[in-house]
């Protein structure tokens, strides 16, 4: 269905081709998963199928890409629109119209289908994707999972033979991701659609794939094969595969179900060992850095601003953050209700829950961006929304969902200098942190040219420059590959050991299992579970990591714990 013949792509100004020597054939009716570390050209390969590369993005494509016999060199993306449906990483930038029903019809209108055919297909697709209730809703009011389903639906209505998806589940909570994957499964099985998708969260998708294409490193030729074979050599792998490799299972299991069947002997070997208890929190609380004298502007001096804040004494506090019976309302909607939460120094707390449960609102309240409607919030002894931003950065730092928002200088060096002056830290302290987190990034790189993982690290360094005792991260692993995630886990682990309290809002159960001392689950703005990670996640089908699902009822959370228990040095 899709044929790549000796394809290589080189973008203008790039030193080496992004893709080279790609030679592969995707047969009709298969779900093919494209895996590989960040920056190996997965998105470029996907773009080449829909013709957006090179017609839209520029660059030079040599070789030949044909889709169902149509050559993308001679066919523009719009002439492939009836054949290939493409959904990019960000569903919001996919939408052309403003209501769900119009969006589903848009592609068919462009192709000139008859009105009665359009009407029928829209109704069918609404049912297929479970969107019937939302048909008249403005798209902007939908949740992330709903938007992703609308985006998929909007390319399904012209009945394309090929569906190309770039990270369809990265932004979704586990339940919404399962919905999307169930839909894809159904398309492949019932309609014979060919699906080609790239995804970092392999633990979610690898079991559904018929074949896996691995791009091992930038510019290297892709390897295609059965999922189990490819996973055996892949540098990126989900926990279930890692556990399988550790235990030496052959062939490798790809789903929890396969792994559980083989895991009897492993459970026996581990029965005598106790899973490691979480270490007690002994880290000393961090004191905020002393504010350096602030040079006030002329206007500030005229208005007498800025003098008052420096004189206030530092209030002492036992907990880094204390939230009591917090309520937040937005219009008539109660975003948070009676939330009580205490974060101790050195503690890592994972906030989980479906999209829209109030995780981001809680984080925003902790940094003072949202004013509580009721209840109290104290961070480092201060009420966040009444404290000057300059003061607040030395008590709490938030890395937002899109780290790029935090970066607005045009080079890494300028960004660091700005961070130093913002935080009132000694010059060079931010750059030192950057060097620690990102060893080989030159000073003059533009933040936009960094990879997702590097950008996150830079934003983290900027936030850490003020040495805030409380560090908040909103969805930090979105778009990160396993290697970047592993580095992040190491960094955050080190910070916690040095006494930083960390609160993560995340959908990534594996991350929570590796890092968090405590898991707090929010639903509809209320805390529905709060306890030690093992107690909370092991009992939950949605939030349990793969390792604990495989080894239940034993309470192992991560492959690393199992490896340590087996005494495997590697």
């Amino acid at each position, binding site marked *: 269905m899709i044929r790549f013949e000796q394809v290589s792509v080189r973008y203008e100004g790039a030193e080496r081709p992004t893709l080279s020597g790609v030679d592969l054939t995707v047969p009709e009716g298969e779900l093919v998963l494209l895996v590989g570390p960040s920056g190996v050209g997965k998105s470029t390969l996907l773009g080449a199928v829909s013709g*957006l590369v090179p017609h839209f993005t520029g660059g030079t494509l040599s070789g030949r890409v044909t889709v169902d016999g149509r050559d993308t060199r001679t066919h*523009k*993306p*719009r002439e492939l*629109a*009836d054949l290939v449906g*493409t959904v*990019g990483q960000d569903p919001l*930038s996919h*939408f*052309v*119209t*403003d209501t769900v*029903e119009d969006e589903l*019809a848009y592609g068919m*209108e*462009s192709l000139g289908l*008859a009105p009665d055919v359009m009407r029928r297909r*829209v109704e*069918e*697709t609404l*049912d297929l994707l*479970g*969107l*019937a*209730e*939302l*048909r*008249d809703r*403005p798209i*902007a009011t939908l*949740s992330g999972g*709903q938007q992703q*389903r609308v985006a998929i639906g909007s390319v399904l209505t*012209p009945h394309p033979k090929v569906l190309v998806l770039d990270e369809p589940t990265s932004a979704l*909570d586990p*339940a919404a991701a*399962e*919905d999307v994957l169930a839909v894809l499964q*159904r398309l492949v*099985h019932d*309609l014979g659609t060919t699906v080609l998708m790239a995804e970092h969260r392999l633990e979610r998708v690898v079991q559904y794939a018929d074949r896996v294409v691995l791009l091992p490193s930038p510019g290297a030729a892709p390897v295609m094969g059965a999922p189990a074979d490819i996973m055996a050599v892949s540098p990126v792998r989900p926990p279930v595969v890692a556990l399988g490799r550790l235990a030496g299972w052959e062939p490798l299991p790809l789903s929890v179900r396969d792994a559980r069947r083989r895991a009897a002997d492993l459970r026996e070997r581990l029965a005598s060992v106790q899973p490691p208890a979480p270490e007690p929190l002994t880290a000393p609380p961090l004191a905020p850095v002393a504010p350096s004298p602030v040079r006030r502007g002329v206007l500030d001096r005229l208005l007498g601003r800025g003098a008052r804040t420096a004189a206030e004494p530092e209030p002492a506090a036992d907990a880094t953050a204390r939230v009591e019976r917090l309520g937040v309302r937005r219009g008539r909607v109660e975003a948070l209700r009676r939330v009580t939460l205490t974060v101790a120094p050195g503690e890592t707390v994972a906030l989980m829950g*479906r*999209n829209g*449960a109030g995780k981001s609102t809680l984080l925003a309240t902790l*940094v*003072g961006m949202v004013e509580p409607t009721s209840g109290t919030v104290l961070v480092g002894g201060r009420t966040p929304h009444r404290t000057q931003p*300059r003061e*607040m*950065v*030395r008590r709490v*730092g938030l890395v*937002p969902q*899109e780290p790029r*928002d*935090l970066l*607005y200088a045009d080079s890494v060096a300028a960004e660091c200098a700005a961070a130093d002056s913002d935080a009132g830290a000694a010059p060079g302290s931010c750059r030192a942190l950057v060097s620690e987190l990102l060893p080989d990034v030159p000073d003059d790189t533009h933040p936009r040219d960094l990879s997702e993982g590097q950008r996150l690290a830079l934003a983290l360094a*900027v*936030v850490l420059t*003020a040495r805030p005792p409380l560090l908040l991260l909103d969805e930090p692993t979105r778009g990160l590959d396993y290697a970047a995630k592993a580095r992040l886990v190491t960094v955050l682990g080190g910070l916690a050991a040095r006494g930083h309290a960390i609160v993560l809002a995340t959908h990534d159960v594996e991350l929570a299992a590796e890092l968090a001392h405590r898991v707090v689950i929010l639903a509809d703005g209320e805390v529905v579970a709060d306890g030690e990670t093992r107690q909370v996640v092991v009992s939950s089908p949605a939030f349990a990591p793969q390792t604990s699902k495989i080894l239940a009822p034993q309470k192992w959370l991560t492959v690393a714990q199992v490896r340590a228990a087996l005494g495997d040095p590697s």
Partner: protein
Amino acid sequence: MTASTSAPAGRTPLARRRALRAPAASRSNALPAGAWWLWALGLATAASRTTNPLLLGLLVGVAGYVVAARRTDAPWARSYGAFIRIGLFVVAVRLVFSVFLGSPIPGTHTVFTLPEVPLPDWAKGVRLGGRVTAEQLVFALYDGAKLATLLICIGAANSLANPARLLKSLPGALYEAGVAVVVAMTFAPNMVADVMRLRTARRLRGRPTGGIKAVLQIGLPVLEGALERSVAVAASMDARGYGRTAQVPPAVRRTTNVLTLGGLLGVCAGTYGLLAAQGAVYGVPVLIAGLVAAMAGLRLGGARSVRTRYRPDRWGVRAWLVAGSGVAVAVAMIWAGGAYGEALHPGVVPLTAPVLPLWPAAAVLIGLLPAVVAPVPPPVGTPANAAPVGAAPVGAAPVGAAPVGAAPVGAPNSKEIQ
């Protein structure tokens, strides 16, 4: 309500009355955006014909009542409040200018006197400060109120009709341009969202969020982000078939070009003829010929586009009633300009209290008709609008065979995805 439709001829009065009641709004019976705009423009025309504050107030009241009764909770529907604020601002600006710059209205009732700034000889006729009379204030107030009412009528149309759907009713040849305009219009709200996000980010970095410096520093990333987003939307549109064209014989293409260009030239020439002193003879026929040619060109140009329309809005009885009520108000007010001229423009010199002329006021009330005949949108916060939707697809019905409305989807599901 549906019972009456199936009953044969002998319907009871009760059933007949039920059938006449406005139905709940849905996509099928949605009023065309054009109907709402005609209604609002009718009210606006009426407003431009009077300075009587009582009549203007009545017009604002009529527009406001219809908006309150028939608007949805869609994002564009919230713009009404903004338009009212702009209207008040216009009145205030008009008053302030009148106070400081004086007014040619002669008046005898001095309210207060501002110190007058002496201006050199060459600035004769311009005055800064000086006497402020009640007459000039009332005049400015009437004038401002007229403009504000016009704006509020436009705001009413804006919040009742989806602007995107108005552009959808463009002829086929202009459709692509219409989509481009719609996408461009989403730019503004997206940029506002970007500004909010970046202000947040500034706060996170401990910088003040106000001030000129902040605006300058935020500006560039906002523009960058907006540009990136529009490129992404363009890519998506391209991949979804935007701009696909059908093969048209060269003859047709040439005819289209000739007709469109010739028509536009004709329109220009005709307009010039009408405006110039000596061309009144040929002006009208050339203008009409030009218009016809341009229309024919657009129509032929539509053949190049392969697009079809999904569920276009239909002009039904209710749409005609809505549009007609607005036109009726406008016509009545224009007619009243002759018969009730004095009441429509209450005197300023000498100051008189405005009176409410009975028949024009009654005519304005015709504008309330849409509040009765237009389909009723579901109240805010009902399941169709704001329910958490448990919408995971359950079961496995093959798409091709799924009977509409009977697929096992949307069944009660414990996983609510909000």
